[in-house]
């Protein structure tokens, strides 16, 4: 079971990242939970300075941009292997 967090206070780019994450999860048929982190004190716990951020199993994998579905697939595969 993976925990994926999208960090950002609801900007358009944050929604894109969430969509991409959900799509990849569906394509890979994964069991994963997607959580939106929208409060700044919570976002800042991950020590990023540009949103949107993407966190897989508490590890920051991207910040300040919209990753491609291919990248997200790689990160999720990595996280599965480590889990």
């Amino acid at each position, binding site marked *: 079971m993976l925990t994926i967090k999208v960090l950002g*206070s609801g900007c358009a780019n944050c929604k894109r990242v969430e969509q991409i994450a959900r799509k990849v999860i569906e394509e890979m048929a994964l069991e994963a939970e997607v959580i939106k982190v929208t409060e*700044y004190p919570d*976002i800042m716990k991950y*020590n*990023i*300075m*540009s949103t949107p*951020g993407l966190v897989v199993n508490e590890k920051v994998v991207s910040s300040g941009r919209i990753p491609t579905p291919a990248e997200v697939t790689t990160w999720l595969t990595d996280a599965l292997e480590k889990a």
Partner: protein
Amino acid sequence: MTVLPLTQPNKRLYITLTIAIIAWFIAYNIVQPLADWISYSALGLARDSHLGESLAFFLYDVPKILLLLSGMVFLISIVRTFFSPERTRALLGGKAEGVGNIFAALLGIVTPFCSCSAVPLFIGFVESGIPLGVTFSFLIAAPTINEVAIILLFGLFGWKVAALYIVSGLTVAIVAGFIIGKLKMEHYVEDFVWQIKSGGQAFEEKMTWADRIERAWDSVKEIVGKVWLYVVIGIAVGAGIHGYVPEDALASVLGKQAWWSVPVAVLIGIPLYSNAAGIVPIVGALIEKGASVGTTLAFMMSVIGLSLPEAVILKRVLKMPLLLTFFAVIAIAIMLTGYLFNWVL
């Protein structure tokens, strides 16, 4: 940084890049003859007619500016992959006010920045101990001295005006940040900001050259896709003014002798936002018709640097007195820069 191995996909990337660069140079060099040919030969307009002149100006400027924009955004984006907000914060750590303000303003030019990230950036800076004034110097320089504005100024009026704009943006950012720092307004930052303790190591990405090229290409698509329409409309209006409005028509309203034109230009600029791309060509036409450079630059900085959407975003971390001071100090600094250039030039 790892040296890029010549794997198959990388090879393809380099070949594509080489072809793109060659195509760019060819296109850039045939724009002028092509525009003249269409206006004067194909359409048979007279060389000294208003319509012919305006059309040739438009057909030349639009492709030229869009090519410049794509090429320069690509180069700037490559440079920016080497600067992250996290790295900038590390570079600013431990710098005293004064020197810190200068560094922050300079780093504001090269650090990738989106006003949607203004809050995490603000928190990340002050939480790591960077002085408030230095943080503001960065937050003023980053959006004001933006690549689209600089490229358009360079493409339409040459490097002198572009350089002047950069210098004025830097001056405003350094001076305004320094003043805000001296006002000791730390208690007007929302309390929760001071309580945040970000944990762990800052996120840092490892990138290969292929990643950087791909990232830069993505920002070309994003930025050009976002601004091309404004550029076309802006140049169309500019071309119209170029051909039809008489020289010096604006000198009495926007010229040097009209002292009130600078504050008025700044005030009008505040509610106008995000049309930086479209406003530059219009601004150019204004200068050509007698508006003074200082007034025009003040107007541009106000449009780009003082934006209401950003104020709304920053309201999350700044209490009202500080937010208002922030805006007032920038507005005054922009006006003074406008007067300075009107006086010097």
